[in-house]
Structures are given as structure tokens and as C-alpha cells.
């Protein structure tokens, strides 16, 4: 495929904003990409520094840099946290724009379609960002428009869509985390939290590895991405309960909270039919940044689960 040379055509206008960035690093703790890899190069601040390097000629464009700059879930939490009011995601989008069509362009966290695609076009219709197109018999993702929300991953009936780099937010990674945690002695419950709605503490540190926590919070990009098999998996692995946290009504631009509610309602019904207490699966809606509310919801849930005791498979 023919490529064009890399130019900082769209990035040029951000020079003074990048000077304003005081590099305080307050964006780190909010970034799901950084929290997964814990490399500073994956934090929002690093993205700004790399762009600064490209603009000043101190860094040469590369596939590696393109990959870093294209790895963003657009949760906007860095933008809200920024001391200097730097519009990080707008700048990242322009970086993707400048890399698009060059030899360095990479998908990062944007979605890719594999050969299992049945061309049903459900993903094209579902994309809230008009990033997916049907061109000459194939589905293409516009890496600039794609905001890695995963609506296409969720809707694909053939599981032919995936985010290229998931940073621990895809189903296999979450299943792996569930299995690892539930292998511990005192493990009782899994809490699935939507990246937009919840705000756990202990962001970057871990308690004594010999300590025995009763529950584990797992990050998912959106409540709508929590499919039923994923929610049932902990119970199949002897968890005592599963709590799902998602945004309040009207707060989710993908209606992910509506989907999460539907899934949880259906699963509660299923448990009931199986003569299992339906309260072993619960849903809580948490407003953005409401740490206290989220913790209180977890505490209440754990009280219920502890009263119910272990789940006996029959």
C-alpha cells in the first residue's frame, strides 16, 4: 500500500498547549493503559512528551511511537484531571491523524476485524463514532475516528472484532484475572467496574501479597462489554458472588449501562430458576468519581455474600 511521509500538519497548532503542560503527572492514575503496563511511556503525560519530541525534531517518527499514541480509550479522565487544561485527547487524535496513511500507522487500541467477519455490517451501524466503513467488500476501521469504545466488539455475532491492544480489558484477560484471584484461599467475589463510572483507591500499589482479600476489582472498559459468560465465569469457579458497577442512567454514551442491566437481570433470573440465591449477582450504578459510594456498595454486597456463604455446585 502506498504511504505518505509523516508530517506534523495537525499537531503543529498544539505547540503552546504542550508548553503549558507542567508535566505534573496527575494524569497517570486515571489512565487505564498506564495502570495496566505501569510503564511511564504509556501514561498520558508521556504521550504529550513524545508529541513534543516529534514537534521539536528531538524524536523521529516510528511505529513504536504511533502505537503509543494510538493506545487511548478516550475515557477523558486525564483531560478532567489535567492541572493545565491541556486537551489531551484532542491532541492525541491529531497525532493519530498525522500518522494515518504513513508507513508508521498502527491500530493501537482501535478495533480490528479478522477473517471470521460475515459482513453483516452490525458493527458499522453500531459504531457511535462512524469509524467503521464497508468498502469494496471489506470492513475498515478509521483509526482517527475510532475511540476504542468496543461497541463493535460487543455487537459482533461472530466474535470477529477485537481491539488490537486491549491492555487487560478484553474477555480472555479478565477471565485469566478471575481464575488467578479465585485460586487464592480467601477469595469470595469479583467486582467488575466500568472504567468511566468507578474510581477505586489503591491505584498503583498493592497490599501485602500474603494478605487475603475477599474480593477483587477488575476494570472493564464499559458495562456494556460485560457479556453473560464473563459474568457467570466467577460463579462457575466457586466465587460466592459477582458485583457489576456501571454508570448511572443517562451517563453512558454507548448505553452500556442499559446492556449491563439487561445482562444482570437475565442472570439473576437464571440463578433463581436454578434455585440459587439471585443476590449472588448484583448491579450498582456509580457516579463518576464517587469513591465513597462505590466502596459502600462493595461493603454492602460483601455483607450479603458473606451471609449467603459459599456457593455449593450441585
Amino acid at each position: 500500500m502506498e504511504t505518505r511521509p509523516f508530517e506534523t500538519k495537525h499537531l503543529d497548532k498544539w505547540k503552546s498547549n504542550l508548553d503549558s503542560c507542567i508535566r505534573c503527572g496527575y494524569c497517570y492514575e486515571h489512565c487505564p493503559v498506564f495502570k495496566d503496563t505501569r510503564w511511564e511511556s504509556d501514561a498520558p503525560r508521556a504521550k504529550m512528551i513524545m508529541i513534543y519530541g516529534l514537534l521539536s525534531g528531538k524524536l523521529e517518527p516510528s511505529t513504536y511511537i504511533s502505537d503509543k499514541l494510538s493506545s487511548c480509550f478516550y475515557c477523558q479522565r486525564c483531560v478532567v484531571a489535567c492541572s493545565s487544561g491541556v486537551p489531551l485527547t484532542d491532541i492525541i487524535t491529531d497525532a493519530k491523524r498525522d500518522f494515518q496513511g504513513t508507513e508508521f500507522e498502527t491500530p493501537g487500541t482501535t478495533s480490528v476485524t479478522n477473517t471470521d467477519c460475515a459482513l453483516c455490517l452490525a458493527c458499522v451501524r453500531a459504531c457511535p463514532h462512524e469509524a467503521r466503513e464497508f468498502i469494496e467488500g471489506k470492513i475498515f476501521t478509521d483509526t482517527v475516528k475510532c475511540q476504542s469504545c468496543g461497541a463493535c466488539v460487543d455487537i459482533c455475532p461472530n466474535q470477529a472484532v477485537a481491539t488490537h491492544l486491549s491492555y487487560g480489558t478484553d474477555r480472555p484477560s479478565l477471565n485469566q484475572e478471575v481464575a488467578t484471584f479465585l485460586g487464592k484461599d480467601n477469595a469470595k467475589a469479583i467486582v467488575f467496574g466500568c472504567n468511566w463510572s468507578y474510581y477505586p483507591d489503591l491505584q498503583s500499589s498493592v497490599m501485602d501479597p500474603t494478605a487475603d482479600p475477599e474480593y477483587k476489582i477488575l476494570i472493564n472498559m464499559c458495562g456494556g462489554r460485560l457479556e453473560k459468560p464473563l459474568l457467570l465465569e466467577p460463579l462457575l469457579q466457586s466465587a460466592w458472588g459477582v458485583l457489576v458497577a456501571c454508570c448511572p442512567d443517562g451517563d453512558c454514551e454507548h448505553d452500556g449501562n442499559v446492556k449491563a442491566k439487561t445482562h444482570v437481570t437475565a442472570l439473576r433470573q437464571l440463578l433463581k430458576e436454578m434455585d440459587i440465591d439471585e443476590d449472588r449477582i448484583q448491579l450498582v450504578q456509580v457516579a463518576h468519581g464517587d469513591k465513597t459510594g462505590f466502596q459502600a456498595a462493595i461493603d454492602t454486597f460483601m455483607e450479603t455474600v458473606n451471609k449467603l456463604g459459599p456457593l455449593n455446585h450441585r
Partner: protein
Amino acid sequence: MEKIDVPRLISIVGEKNVKTDPADLYVYGSDASVHSARPWVVVRPENTEQVQAIMAFANQGKIPVVTRGGGSGMCGQTVPVKGGITLDMKRMNQILEINPSDVFCRVQPGVVDDDLNHALKPFGVFYPPTPASSRIATIGGEIGNNASGVRSVKYGATRDSVLGMKVVLPDGSLVTLGARTRVEATGYQLHKLIVGSEGTLGVVVEATLSFVPIPKFRCLGMANFDRLEDAGAAIADIMASGVVPSMLELVDSVAIKAVNKTMDLGLPEVEAVLLYEADAMVKEAVDHEINAMQEVCKKHGGKGLTSSYDAKERAKIFMGRKKLFPALSKFSDILSSTSLADDMAVPYSKMAETARTIHEIAKRNNIIMTAYGHCGSGCMHTKILMEPTRQDQWESARKAVAEIYEYVRSVKGTTSAEHGIGISKASAFKAEKSDSLDLMRNIKKAFDPNNILNPGKLMDAHDDWVTATDLRYTIA
């Protein structure tokens, strides 16, 4: 990249924990300061044994090693001026033990301050040094800088809370310093020396920290002053009166204007605002302290006195101070907020004069400077607002910074209260501590004969901070 045996480092920490891409090196070459340089390689150790192996390897080849936590330092402490290995300590992030009966906790250096306090909260205690950057600052970095924050007036700085530590020396050997007891008189307390040594003496791999009970009552008050000097006199009087505030903050008129301009908070356009706080386990004790501070403020012409115990009300009163940092960053599209001469300390009686002098120096040098800070600890913060792409602005900044530090020394103040020295303040530090520099050099040599740990900092730093490294900005 300089020639370095990367496969050897990979054999120690694994391939996933070594970075050599130019983009990674560029990112790890800067922090929150104005400086920039590049390491040759970034390595993430997971445990003490790996740190020991890396140090032994580096010492053998005389390779520089810079230890790095959150990278939130403001003076260039983690900028690798001589290249070498940057040790990213964020993987050593375990809270190893919380021991309420013996009143200590043990943590690895990569634990984030806020995370530690979150973990301590269920025990009804907190770790008090807490700088403003506590959401990303690591305990290791705070130890390196002897960090402190708004409550240092009552609870002290990091050094006051560190009981002991395990440190890997440049040759790879491990030493245990300090104790787990509240007091110790057992020879040189070398752990206290490590605090504030900016990664030049050893690599901290574990710290034993004390904590204090979370007070049940907290009250925050505010007073406005038409004259800066009156606010200064109130500060000195409060601190001399026997009152122990848990916070005493000064905000100057430049800061007030910045907050009003960018945040529209409608703060009164006076010359100075004082924020004062008291905390205790019984309300009467807090009442006593707050009343005493209000009386002093009234005596010196303080107006619009207000105070509250309510958390929401306190947040409202503190809003102007809290929004100051972003307000200065957003003050103008062409001006950037830089951390230079940003945390000197002066005697209480000189607080107002210092703020006034800073304004005069800024005006004389055609830059904008604000003065605010934890005046209860004698700490004055400033930010220099300037056009960082203009060479002449750097000349002005260089001149202003030199004049400020000359004044600070003249009133027997000190170069840094809480951000440390690094590169930016090295010349002022050397001028202030001129008669003990040789002693410090000998101590450094005793710990690190090959000068591999964070070379080019403190006594070893360039005398001109503007040309010591590349600046992070592109200057026309």
C-alpha cells in the same frame, strides 16, 4: 545510546522490564522540572535481589544509575544528566506490613503516598508528610527529597516519619538502617541522612514509617488582609503565640488575580489571604486554637474572617488555594508556569518581606511571579510565568532566580523547604552551604566511591541551571 550490556540487564529483570527505544528514553529523561536529558536504558526491578544485581553490574562498569519514582520532581532530580541506567521503582509497590500496635508500617519504595494513606485509613491513622503530588508521588521519591506538604507545620516532613530503611549501596550490598522504635540513639542515624539525599547515596528498597491518628475534629478559617505586611505580621504572631496550627497558608495578590481570572471564584482582591487550620481529638482544643488564630488576625487588620468544621464548607474556603496551581498554568495562552526558585524557606518574621521582594524582583526582570505557600513552616512557594520559547525570558529568569536566592540567604533563609535541589537549585545550594560542601563530598565518596549514583546533582551539579541540561522547551 551509549554502549551498555543490555542483555545482562535483561538477564536480571527479564525482557519485559527493560526499555531502550528512543521514545522511552526521551520520556524517562524528563520530570516536572524544566530540564531534559536521556538515560541509556530504563530498567524496572521487582525485588531487592534484582536491585542488588543491577547495582553490582553498574558499579563494575562505572555506569551512572538514577533512581526514579513517579517522576513528579520539580528540580530535575531524576533527569539523568550523565545518561546511564534509570531505575524505575514503580514495580516495587507493595505495602508489606501495617502494624498498629507498634505504630509503624513497612513499604516498598514504589508505593504511592495516597495509596498508603488509603490502606492506613481503616486503622484510624495517616502518614502525614503528604506533598501536593501525593496522588502520584512514591514513598521512595518522597524519601529522596524529604518531601512535605501543607500540614508540615504540625506533622513535619518525611524525615520526621521515617524510622528505618533497607538500602542497596552502589556495590550491591544491602544495609539495614534505623530501627522500628520511636526513638533511637544508636550511633549515626544514617537513615535520616538518606532522606533528602536525592538518590546519591543508595537505593532505598524498603522503608519503615511511623503514622499518627487521624484527628476527629478539623476546622479551617480564612482572613483577608489589605496589606501584605499585616498578613506577614499575623503569621509571625501566630507562630510565636504557642498555637500549633495544622495548616497556615498565605496566598498573595498575584495568585488571587490568577484564580479570579481563570476560575471566576470571586475572591476579594486584597493583598493577601491567610488560611489557617487546627485539628485535634476534642473539639474544645480545636476551638481554642482557631479562636487564638482569629484574634491574632483581627489584631493585624484581618477582615472577612470565616471558619468551618464542615467538610464541604472547608472545601469551599480552600477552593482558591486548591485552584491556584491550575489557575497559574491557565493564566495566559503564551505564558507557561515554571518551577524555578519555587520553595525557599525564611524565618516567620520575614514572610511578608519575602513575598514583597519576590514581586519587586519579578517586576524588575519583566516576568510574573506569585508568592504563596505553607508559611506555618516558613515555606514560600513561587511560580515563574514566562514565555519559555524566548531566550531573553530565560536570561530574565536566571537573573531573577539569582536575586531571590541572594535575598533568601541575606535573611538567613534556606534554598529549599520541600522540593529538593536537583539541578535547578544547585548553585544557590552551593552558595548557601559553602562551608560544608567538602564534608558532603566526603560523605558521598564514602557511600559511592565511583560516583555512579545520580551523578551531576547537588554538590556535583553544574553551576548554571539554564545550560546544565537541554531545557524541555524549544527556544527560538
